């Protein structure tokens, strides 16, 4: 228990008749009882209680909150170490898990820069003169995302990859003025599709999900589904199963009916694969976690969103633009804010009022650290190691690739025997070996998806294969 001084300690009997001033220096409080007395005198009240006079007695809490007693930093550290000891992280068991976030390497410069508290303890850069550091970094981020995607404009980031898909669809509805339907491939991340369903629950468009039994969306199926009321088509490339989609044909089928082509992409795949701007994407979104951000049990991450120039005033989220100050010096400001909720209220393009600033900064430093060659080599290592792992695993009896599709760093295996039991056994041997797809796709209950990043060594892959053999 911290504190322990003064007569203010206490159990339920103390409230509400507590001291007129708070006891000394509970955590992070600087004003001592003497300071508080002086301040109360200046204000013209007798006690802290008097400052809360506007809260009716009938709704006041008459007991302490039922949360555990305070801890010192040392006790808290010991407590957190004990809690984390009950986790088996991706540093402790070799991680072959994907499904939207991946165990990629993070260069030390990313942590060093993001650890500058001038960045992480600042807020939204409303005062441009006092925020040029973050504003310039976000402008650089927007530029890097344009370079990465081959599209014209990018915003300063969204929450994460799943809700970014929903924001892209809302944007497509506004751009096209079509409210009929959204066509989505079943090979898009199932949880992204669930988020989209949640966001659209009370809006007009219905969601038509096109089956992908061969592990990809057949452009002929798409052609039949898209109509003149379709606001957009959503695909993921590489898709949830790891496979590549026939994006050029899909874009063509989409555009033939005047709908927008929305693609959820893997940022690191663009070291090798064609860019969304090259194959006809109108809006490209992504989970940005793989760009220098820790796994962190699912968040915080950042969503990427880039699009064609003509849609810029329909974009959701923060945008940073270049301008000059009154002396003519080049500088950066938040701009096109008339799209946003604090000006437009219920007519805003989105209800989002922040970006994921710190994580956009991390992605910026990460991409700058890699450069074009580093991005290509990272993608190349992912690709080759994933193919090596697939080759070795499918050499085992009863294991085969589920889909005959080209893949990048993730692939889907069909296996004999109970999948969850096998994965549990592999975890006991030190491997987060893969994801059981039955949770999302009942018809794929015998399938496992495996992801391989540049971090995985041949020794680790061979180890997984050996463990799999014996599991």
């Amino acid at each position, binding site marked *: 228990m911290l504190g322990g001084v003064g007569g203010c300690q206490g159990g339920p009997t103390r409230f509400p008749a507590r001291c007129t001033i708070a006891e000394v220096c509970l955590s992070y409080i600087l004003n001592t009882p003497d300071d508080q007395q002086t301040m109360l005198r200046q204000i013209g009240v007798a006690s802290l209680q008097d400052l809360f006079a506007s809260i009716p007695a009938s709704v006041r809490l008459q007991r302490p909150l039922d949360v555990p007693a305070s801890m010192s930093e040392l006790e808290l550290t010991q407590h957190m170490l004990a809690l984390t000891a009950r986790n088996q992280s991706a540093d402790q068991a070799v991680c072959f898990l994907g499904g939207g976030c991946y165990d990629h390497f993070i260069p030390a410069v990313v942590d060093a820069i993001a650890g500058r508290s001038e960045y992480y303890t600042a807020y939204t850069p409303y005062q441009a003169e006092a925020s040029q550091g973050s504003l310039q970094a976000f402008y650089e981020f927007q530029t890097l995302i344009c*370079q990465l995607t081959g599209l014209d404009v990018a915003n300063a980031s969204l929450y994460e990859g799943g809700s970014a898909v929903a924001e892209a669809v809302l944007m497509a509805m506004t751009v096209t003025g079509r409210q009929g339907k959204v066509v989505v491939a079943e090979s898009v991340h199932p949880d992204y599709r669930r988020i989209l369903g949640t966001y659209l629950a009370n809006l007009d468009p219905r969601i038509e999900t096109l089956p992908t039994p061969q592990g990809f969306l057949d452009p002929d199926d798409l052609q039949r589904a898209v109509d003149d009321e379709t606001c957009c088509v959503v695909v993921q490339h590489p898709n949830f199963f790891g496979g590549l989609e026939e994006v050029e044909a899909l874009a063509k089928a989409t555009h033939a009916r005047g709908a927008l082509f929305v693609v959820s992409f893997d940022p690191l795949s663009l070291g090798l694969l064609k860019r969304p701007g090259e194959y006809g994407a109108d809006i490209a979104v992504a989970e940005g976690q793989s760009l220098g951000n820790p796994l962190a049990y699912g968040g915080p991450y950042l969503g990427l969103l880039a699009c064609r120039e003509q849609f810029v005033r329909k974009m959701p989220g923060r945008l940073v633009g270049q301008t000059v100050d009154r002396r003519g010096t080049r500088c950066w400001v938040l701009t096109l804010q008339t799209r946003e909720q604090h000006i437009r209220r219920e007519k805003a393009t989105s209800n989002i009022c922040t970006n994921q600033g710190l994580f956009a900064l991390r992605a910026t430093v990460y991409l700058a650290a890699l450069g074009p060659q580093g991005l290509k080599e990272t993608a190349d290592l992912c690709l080759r190691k994933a193919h090596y792992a697939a080759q070795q695993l499918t050499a085992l009896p009863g294991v085969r690739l589920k889909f005959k599709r080209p893949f990048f760093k993730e692939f889907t295996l069909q296996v004999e025997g109970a999948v969850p039991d096998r994965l549990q056994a592999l975890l006991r041997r030190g491997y987060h070996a893969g994801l059981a797809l039955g949770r999302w796709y009942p018809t794929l209950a015998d399938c496992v998806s495996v992801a391989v990043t540049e971090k995985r060594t041949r020794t680790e892959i061979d180890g997984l294969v050996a463990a799999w053999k014996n599991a």
Partner: protein
Amino acid sequence: MDKNQSTQLLFELSHPGRRTHRLPACDVPLGDASTLLPADTLTSSPPPLPEVGEIDLVRHYVNLSTRNMAIDTNFYPLGSCTMKYNPKRHERLAALSGMASMHPLQSDASTQGVLELLWHMQNFLGEIAGLEAVSLQPAAGAQGELTALLVAAAYFKDRQETQRTRVLIPDSAHGTNPASAALAGFDAVTIKSNSRGLVDLEDLRAKLDERTAVFMITNPNTLGLFDDQIPTIAEMVHRHGALIYLDGANMNAILGITRPGDFGADMMHYNVHKTFTGPHGAGGPGSGPIAVRQMLAPYLPTPLVVKTANGFTLDYDRPKSIGRVHSFYGNVGILVRGYCYIRTLGPEGLRQVSEIAVLNANYILSKIKHAYEVPHGERCMHEFVASARTLRRERRISAMDIGKRLLDYGYHAPTVYFPLVVAEALMIEPTETESKETLDAFADTLLRIREEDATYLQQAPHTLPLSRPDEVKAAKEPILRWKP
């Protein structure tokens, strides 16, 4: 000191052939991409990213960082944003491998520690709210609002009360409130404020009817006032079968003093990054969990963390759930910091946060109110809204001018021009973590600025590298990316 490197763009530092990060040689016996993927899927050259060496990269961003004001460098009384100290211990603990390196799709057997933390966090947030069920999933306050309104819509749909199409929102509310209501499929209806800056009960009474689904209230409100009519408001809204939503942006004023569930709220969101001090990260990440009454719990997003005889697990079997708003479980990294904060403070510490936050705000108010108008009152909660409207009228000094001049004196500006119900608003929130000396110096500075020459103020700041960026030009001729 010459910090030229930070005024150049990253792209202008690029030099062909340089790089920071080098990769290991490939250790598997396979050919390159051209042997593994169809040629028509491959790009001819990788994206044209800048080519920068490590020391140049580091100097660029370290020098750039010095062009920010932040909590760690300056007093940051940005109203409504609760810019309190971000404890260093949180950064170290959230970075532990057993938190930071956890893949969200690991099996429960390998995640018991983080699940236990999240389960406790659900309970803490429920207790502090006085509400029974919590979803940690929303990534920010605005997403929390949307999530809760979707929960409300599902609840009424289930009860076949689909005539409830309207959400009532006070005119002093954050802009996210009406934007979230529209996205959730509701019509936003504005409720006026009265002369005290509180909800106009007559206007509320006139607009409450069987079409009302939700009344959204921020309490304390954006003027820094606790609406003492809340028992009456709750009774009125509930009598019409509607729900009360609390925008929890201002929870820093009432921790352990009153609970939203006890004053009638049926659902609310937290801003964990504000109240429980997640670093604001120059705009995010935030974390916006919601707490709701038991009758709304079935509709919360999936999954929730539950405790079973076999340990902690994620419960996906929730047939009435609205679905999901986040790919995984929310911004866990920020929730870890909030958990550490609550564990550090304990019940007395949480209550003291609010007591001192309110003390500090009232102290500044008392020191400046003879010089600046404060339209709504002698007292405030954790923040207050001053107005420069008379200064504007008499001397053409705007709220913006005062904010910009504060930058010269080493203070971040207050929130200006919000809430919309106060002309020339200056919204000041000192938080509990500031000392009396800091507050004294800030109040003295505000008084001093008031005496300064109007023309000089209109051109402030004078001592920063920049002054008054041309925002009109930025919006009229948008330049949103660097081009070669």
